[in-house]
């Protein structure tokens, strides 16, 4: 009797978990379904769950509603530049905070922590004015340069670097290796997991970001994909949901594909970065 009730519980639990999975996955399946429906189907009653004939043409229609190739190019340019710049800047800094002694170190590290906690919603206004003064508002720079220092990355890499034994560094110094050589040849290979976390993080957050490009762009030629997709709603009104969802797929798919293939390492990265 005891065993039977345990089994019932286990089955009930599994069913509940299946429902839970459905709750979090369904909206994305729904997006796919709507993106393939006809104009009639999106406003039919009862609602259409699965389109009779998939309307692949919706994707071509959505793609032609705006300069999406340009948006895509801008998004990728920004992401690649930001990540490259962050790498060059944050690795030496993290090394210095982990392994060197210098006056003002604690104060400076305090500033790094402040930078870590300060959201763009606070700093955007003065930065916007600064960028206007520099007359770079019609370039991608306002979306790249403010992210040059990745405080979270410095924080994370420092943790890794602190675990490297001092003897190793002393030995390298005896071999006449300069600071930069020590950083890139000795320290960096040891911090690979942290590096991939930071890269993954920067990629996801800049690919998805809506606030910063919204406040930093005034013209079409510097806008990014999220802005373009959000603007579809204005050009399409809120009736052509099939076209909007087809456009939305462009934004979701790359992340989704990456997630399907390496959800484990992504989850581990985010769990690690959360609270440490």
């Amino acid at each position: 009797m005891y065993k039977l009730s345990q089994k019932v519980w286990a089955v009930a639990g599994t069913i509940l978990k299946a429902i839970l999975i459905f709750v979090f996955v369904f909206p994305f399946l729904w997006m796919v379904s709507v993106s393939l429906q006809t104009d009639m189907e999106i406003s039919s009653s009862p609602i259409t769950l699965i389109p009779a004939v998939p309307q692949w043409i919706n994707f071509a229609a959505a793609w032609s509603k705006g300069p999406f190739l340009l948006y895509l190019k801008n998004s990728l340019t920004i992401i690649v530049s930001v990540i490259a710049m962050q790498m060059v800047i944050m690795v030496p800094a993290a090394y210095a905070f982990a392994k060197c002694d210098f006056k003002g170190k604690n104060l400076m590290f305090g500033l790094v922590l402040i930078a870590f906690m300060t959201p763009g919603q606070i700093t955007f206004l003065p930065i916007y004015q600064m960028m206007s003064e520099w007359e770079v508002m019609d370039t991608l720079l306002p979306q790249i340069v403010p992210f040059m220092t990745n405080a979270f990355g410095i924080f994370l890499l420092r943790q890794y670097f602190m675990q490297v034994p001092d003897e190793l560094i002393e030995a390298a110094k005896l071999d006449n290796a300069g600071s930069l050589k020590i950083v890139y040849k000795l320290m960096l290979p040891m911090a690979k997991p942290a590096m991939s976390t930071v890269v993954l993080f920067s990629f996801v957050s800049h690919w998805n970001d809506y606030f910063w490009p919204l406040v930093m762009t005034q013209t079409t030629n510097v806008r990014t994909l999220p802005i373009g997709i959000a603007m579809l709603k204005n050009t399409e009104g809120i009736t052509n949901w099939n076209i909007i969802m087809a456009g939305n797929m462009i934004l979701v798919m790359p992340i989704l594909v990456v997630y399907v293939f390496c959800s484990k390492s992504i989850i581990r990265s985010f769990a690690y970065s959360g609270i440490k």
Partner: protein
Amino acid sequence: MKNVKDRFWEKIGPYLLVAPAMTGIALFVIYPIIKLISMSFYKVNQLNPDKTKFVGFSNYQKMFKTAEFQKALVNTGYYALFMILIVLGCSLILAVWLGSKKSRVNSAAQASAFLPHIISMVSVGLIFQQMMDPDYGIFNALLGAMGLQKSQFLRSSDSAMNSVIFTSAWKSIGYYTLILIAALQSIPESIYEAADLDNAGSVRTFFKITLPMISPQIFFVLIVMTIGNFKVFETIRVMTSGGPNNATTSLVYYIYNKVFMDFDVGRAAAGGVILLIIVGIMTVLYFVSLSKKVHYQ
């Protein structure tokens, strides 16, 4: 000769290593914060900077008197409060439920719950806006099928804020579940075994052991959530644009409107300083508790 050079590098080297990073922080964090605070005391004239004049606290005094700002502040507080209650509650339950045992179903459930967190708020907002369409959306179709009353969701000022909260909560529950699972896994197995020997029930075990053991992490989650929720903007901008009837404006939405709609930069800066104060208090709490946590371990 070499020795002198070496010592020179020993002294200067670290500063060179941190210089680019610190320049970035100085330019794009510290300077903007100072500038924001100073701007909030000026009536800023963008077209003619010479006419910008010092007005003391007048931006704040006037701002707090406007219905627009009060509404934004109340909305933000409401949003933050319910987001924290719902998301913390749900993710605690999910963490205990899905994190207790390693199994395929459990990790699949974790992976799917986490998925929305890495999808753009733009995408999630659009999908939910479509599903919440009063006439053609699937939510009302479901409510109708179950014989329940249909809702206007985002179209009515009564239900718009709750609909936005629902969407945001759905997006972030998986992330906090993950963090709390990591916290749960740090509890030593032996404690549970001891509780088991004492025949403590699972509810009792949860409140007497699990909850106290992960209370430091819950406190962090609370602070991270508070900061995150007080800067709510993207969901609102995508789903409602603050409407209907300002029912979903928020603090950041107010700042955004002041800058880009009313071109009142001084007032916007004053709004920004309010956000800065909230984030500042939370940050101090965060680091105080962080240093305590380190001591205990």
